[in-house]
């Protein structure tokens, strides 16, 4: 027994039980997504088959065709809309939050700490609390039912400012900022040519997390876009799944299409996302 206990866990090699446990966890995590794909490629019979079918069929194109041509769902438009919404929100969050994060981390100005405290305080407020009033506000300025209503509240995030401040505080040495200013560089110039290049990893992490959240957002887009010709992909999916007679191979084909961009992101930026969460990312 004592052969392994005198080491910290992170210095202990994983044994077969570790790998078995992790494999089971991985299967549990991946199976629903995999099965989504299986049904998306199958006929109606596969949905009710016992024991369940686990091998993809050859009906993917046929099912996709049905999804994309279905009336009143606007699936193609919804994918474009989701891309537009998520991209604009991501770009804007990265720009404004890194600007503010830089100011909070490296510039000195009165009320800096008080304002940062306000940012941290707003981190904890549940976003659902204001949904009713947000809808009334959007109605007053005539944005309900348009993508503007979905984009505007996502343009900045308190978490983004917080995260950027932390990162810039570590990644950009004070001396570098000061010497640039002595050389006569304006603050904007310092941001552009010193801060931005130094925080690329943090921009990647925050960008990935922001894109995922924007893409998956459902409640607010449903409230403001429901019944219009401009749904996001999540709203279109809920339309696809509503009605008296739901065809699951079609619904799951749509669900799979809406999941693929995120699987691609996980494959490309998985390491960054893991790092972002381990550095203390917060649920939206």
């Amino acid at each position, binding site marked *: 027994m004592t052969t392994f206990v005198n080491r910290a866990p992170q210095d202990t090699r994983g044994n077969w039980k570790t790998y078995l446990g992790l494999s089971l966890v991985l299967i549990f995590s991946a199976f629903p997504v995999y099965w989504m794909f299986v049904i998306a490629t199958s006929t109606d019979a596969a949905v009710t088959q016992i024991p369940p079918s686990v091998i993809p069929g050859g009906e993917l194109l046929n099912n996709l065709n049905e999804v994309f041509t279905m009336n009143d769902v606007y699936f193609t438009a919804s994918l474009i809309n989701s891309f537009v919404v998520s991209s604009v929100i991501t770009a804007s969050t990265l720009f*404004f939050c890194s600007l503010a994060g830089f*100011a909070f981390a490296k510039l000195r100005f009165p009320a800096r700490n008080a304002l940062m405290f306000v940012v941290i305080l707003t981190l904890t407020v549940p976003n659902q*609390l204001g949904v009713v009033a947000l809808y009334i506000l959007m109605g007053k300025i005539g944005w309900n039912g348009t993508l503007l209503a979905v984009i505007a*509240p996502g343009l900045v995030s308190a978490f983004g400012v917080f995260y950027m401040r932390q990162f810039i505080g570590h990644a950009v040495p004070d001396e570098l900022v000061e010497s640039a200013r002595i050389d006569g560089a304006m*603050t904007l110039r310092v941001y552009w040519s010193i801060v931005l290049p130094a925080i690329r990893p943090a921009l990647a992490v925050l960008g990935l997390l922001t894109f995922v959240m924007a893409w998956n957002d459902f409640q607010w887009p449903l409230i403001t876009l429901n019944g219009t010709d401009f749904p996001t992909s999540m709203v279109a999916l809920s339309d696809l799944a509503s009605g008296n007679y739901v065809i699951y191979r079609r619904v799951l084909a749509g669900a799979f299409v809406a999941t693929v961009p995120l699987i691609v992101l*996980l494959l490309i930026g998985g390491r960054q996302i893991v790092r972002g969460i381990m550095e203390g990312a917060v649920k939206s």
Partner: protein
Amino acid sequence: MSLTQLRPPPQHAAPSPKPSRAKLWLYRFDTKATPYVFIAPFFIIFTIFGLFPIVYNGVVSLRTWRLTEPDKDGWAGFANFSRLFSDSDFWNALYNTFGIFVLSTVPQLLAALIIANLLNRKLRGQAFWRIGILLPYLTPVVASTLVFAVFFSRDSGMANWFLSLVGFGQEQPLDWRAAKWSSWIAIATMVNWKWIGYNALLYLSAMQSIPKDIYEAASVDGAGPWRQLWRITVPMIQPVVVFTVILSTIGGLQLFNEPMMFDENPQSAGGGSAHQFQTIAQLIYKVGWKDLNLGYAAAMSWALFLIILIVAGINALLTKRIGGDR
């Protein structure tokens, strides 16, 4: 400093004249005003679309605000709030929300602890395991819930098939959506599935910052891996555990997507034929945008906010107390 030394020494540059007034003014402006210019976009956008709605929500909750009868708008005093107390739909939704919350949070965090402990080893393919368990976190809830809706269907659903495999087969297949307890378990399964990996990474990150010599000292007492986890690791990462408990409370009490999409008719926002799994967030949506009574929905939002505050506080205290005794 090293950066300036790389530049040509000043005497080689053209003798700079005294800085002009305009330049001085610009420099002043830059140091004094630029910080505010940099933080202004965040505060302006956040105030309009984040802070203002929350404050204004308080105003709406004190008014009669029906989308169908705009002429009846007017102050309602606390009528919307007092109506809450006798609204059986509200209490039912509160009960459901708490039931699902308990069924999802406790297993979720325990499983995350154990998985984090598995990940906290010298592993081959470390990045692969960490990225793999994040797949549920990235998958859109709307999409994954549709899959689970098929899993938990009454006829030929995979959950019922699995039950029959392990010897709990029934003559009548279990209709998961029909009863409170079964629909709660189904929805809690979806929540657990989504968040276990995410929380495991949060715990893992905390576990890796525990000083190694603490384990070395404890091994003298012959603590095995299991006791090591509960006696050393968990108390050491207690702040993160409290943090995840608070996060799960905030998220769990606002649960919306899973019960919405689990319903056979999502657009109704009913939470089952007899509201057996309707959560508060769902009820707010139904009252506001199906019954078109925004004033009452706003009052419900405030009630939910207060409940979240109280429960998050209690949970944080409880977690601290339980962890502190070890």
